[in-house]
């Protein structure tokens, strides 16, 4: 049911594109949200649900995203805003080895399509629905590119030799694409 407040909102016929980071899990074949550890299944849109704690069996307090909450699927306008995720990896000695260990949750960056109800921010979005649109993988993790093909979106390898440099290369490639 469409209510009056929805009718008053600008309506777009294209998804919004934004930047995200994911952890690679399940032997590199699945993307998982970093904060809420939600696995993004191939061929299925992700629908946001408010994660505000509630008693067992009680439905979410409101549809997500709500303008007065922090819920929704997040995306950033600028890949540079994901830099903290890279820096987080830099502090983690497990990911400083040349071969990023998948078991520790190696990071993949990429574009995400966002649609449905979207709360627009100065630097990004909170959205109702999401699906990956383009994934960037350091080439030292190239063997996982085929596994990520299950999402049906382009997977681009970025050629670098060592762990953190590889991720910096991903960011540079992402900026070129956004330009």
């Amino acid at each position: 049911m469409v209510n009056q407040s929805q009718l008053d909102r600008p309506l777009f016929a294209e998804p919004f594109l934004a930047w995200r980071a994911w952890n690679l899990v399940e032997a590199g074949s699945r993307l998982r949200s970093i904060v809420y550890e939600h696995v993004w299944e191939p061929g299925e849109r992700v629908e946001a649900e408010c994660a505000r704690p509630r008693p067992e069996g009680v439905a979410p307090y409101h549809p997500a995203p709500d303008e007065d909450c922090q819920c929704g699927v997040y995306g950033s306008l600028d890949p540079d805003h994901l830099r903290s995720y890279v820096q987080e990896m830099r502090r983690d000695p497990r990911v400083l080895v040349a071969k990023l260990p998948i078991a520790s949750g190696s990071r993949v960056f990429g574009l995400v399509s966002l649609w449905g109800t979207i709360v627009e921010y100065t630097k990004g979005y909170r959205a109702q629905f999401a699906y990956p649109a383009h994934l960037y993988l350091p080439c030292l993790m190239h063997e996982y590119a085929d596994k990520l093909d299950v999402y049906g979106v382009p997977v681009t390898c970025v050629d670098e030799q060592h762990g953190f440099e590889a991720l910096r290369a991903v960011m540079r490639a992402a900026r070129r694409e956004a330009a």
Partner: protein
Amino acid sequence: MEIGEPKRIVESDPLEDPVPREEPVESPPVEVPDGEPVPA
């Protein structure tokens, strides 16, 4: 993730589904012993 300050709420109803659908896969021809291959 730092996304700044809220600006407005919009609705996006894409004309094309952003979730890719699998293309139908054509079955390979079936080999018949001592004969010509025939389509599956």
